[in-house]
């Protein structure tokens, strides 16, 4: 058996199959292609480690038990900073806040990730976080950013739907495979992301809990 035999095993697709498929595919009229849910999916890859603080929100002014900052470099340049704050309530760890800062133009753009206390221990190391928002918002938000860590992902693993969170139009992304969920919305130029481990917190509870946080702290009004 030679290489040629392997090539010769090729077949021409059945004409009827080719014709029917072609008709089905090109049935869609010309014009802008359909965008599923009108959104753009990107992945931000996160790495954790150590040091300092930046306290700018009312919540962050609450006692901070632990604060760490990780500077991520690529090719000798700062690609982003990742800040982890463990907040306290009554002297006990109550909530973890993550802030992801990207160098954009002259300054930085912040993405804040809130983790409800019982949503697990936050994002496991080296697991990508999905940032999802309408493309026009995304382009505005990341205007001037040097780069955005971005990767196409299989849509089959995600279910996406729009939800209302305290009158804010948010997007709930559920990764059925990893069994976690991300609730995200953009407000006043800041992307808010709430992560939930669905083994510990049901998706509807994630929304309700986020609403309570917003009502109590007014973070989304900053």
């Amino acid at each position: 058996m030679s290489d040629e035999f392997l090539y010769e095993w090729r077949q021409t697709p059945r004409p009827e199959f080719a014709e029917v498929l072609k008709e089905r595919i090109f049935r869609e009229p010309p014009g802008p292609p359909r965008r599923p849910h009108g959104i753009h999916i990107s992945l931000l890859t996160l790495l954790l480690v150590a040091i300092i603080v930046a306290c700018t929100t009312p919540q962050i002014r609450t006692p901070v038990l632990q604060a760490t900052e990780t500077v991520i470099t690529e090719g000798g340049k700062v690609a982003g900073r990742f800040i982890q704050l463990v907040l306290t309530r009554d002297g006990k760890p109550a909530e973890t806040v993550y802030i992801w800062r990207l160098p954009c133009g002259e300054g930085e753009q912040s993405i804040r990730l809130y983790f409800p206390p019982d949503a697990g221990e936050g994002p496991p190391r080296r697991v990508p976080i999905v940032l999802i928002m309408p493309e026009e918002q995304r382009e505005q938000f990341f205007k001037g950013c040097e780069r955005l860590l971005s990767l196409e992902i299989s849509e089959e693993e995600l279910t996406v739907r729009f939800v209302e969170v305290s009158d804010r139009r948010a997007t709930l992304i559920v990764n059925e495979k990893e069994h976690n969920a991300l609730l995200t919305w953009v407000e006043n130029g800041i992307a808010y992301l709430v992560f939930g481990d669905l083994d510990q917190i049901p998706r509807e509870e994630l929304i309700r809990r986020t609403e309570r946080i917003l009502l109590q702290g007014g973070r989304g009004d900053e």
Partner: protein
Amino acid sequence: MPIRKDSREKGQSDGVDWEAVYAGYLPRVYNYFRYLVGVQAVAEDLTATVFEKAWRRRDRYRSDVGAFSTWLFTVAKNVARDYFRHRRQEVPLEWARSLADPDPVEEVVAEREERDRLAALLARLPDRERELIALKYGAGLTNREIARLSGLSETNVGTILHRTVQRLREEWEEQDER
């Protein structure tokens, strides 16, 4: 990535002539799946899925980032991955017949016999080797294109393909000697 306004003509996006793409790539994608799954009906289903997805997502292809073949076969690889993830426990009937019946009845023509034999041999290959064979001989990609798709080095692709073809040849000859 938005489609360029000047390329929103029928069947075109980002300078891609989809009519030509369909005509040129349909046999290659179809044969990629034939070598991978060994069953015509399944290969047709998966091929249809690839072209439907590629057409729906045609705005995501960027000609300045990579070759169209790389983009399209990345879609095909994802479709194959999903197929095997969900169907891993099912044995296609044609494979089962090939594996279970090494001595087909006399009226089966020689060509069909050889086809089944090759399908059975391919089915026994490890996933990575079968994938590379499908990309090389089914899709007709070069070792360099396969390297880009698989993340392996071009040299590594060549080495694995050489060994795999050698293995197929040996097993084929062993069956001939029986």
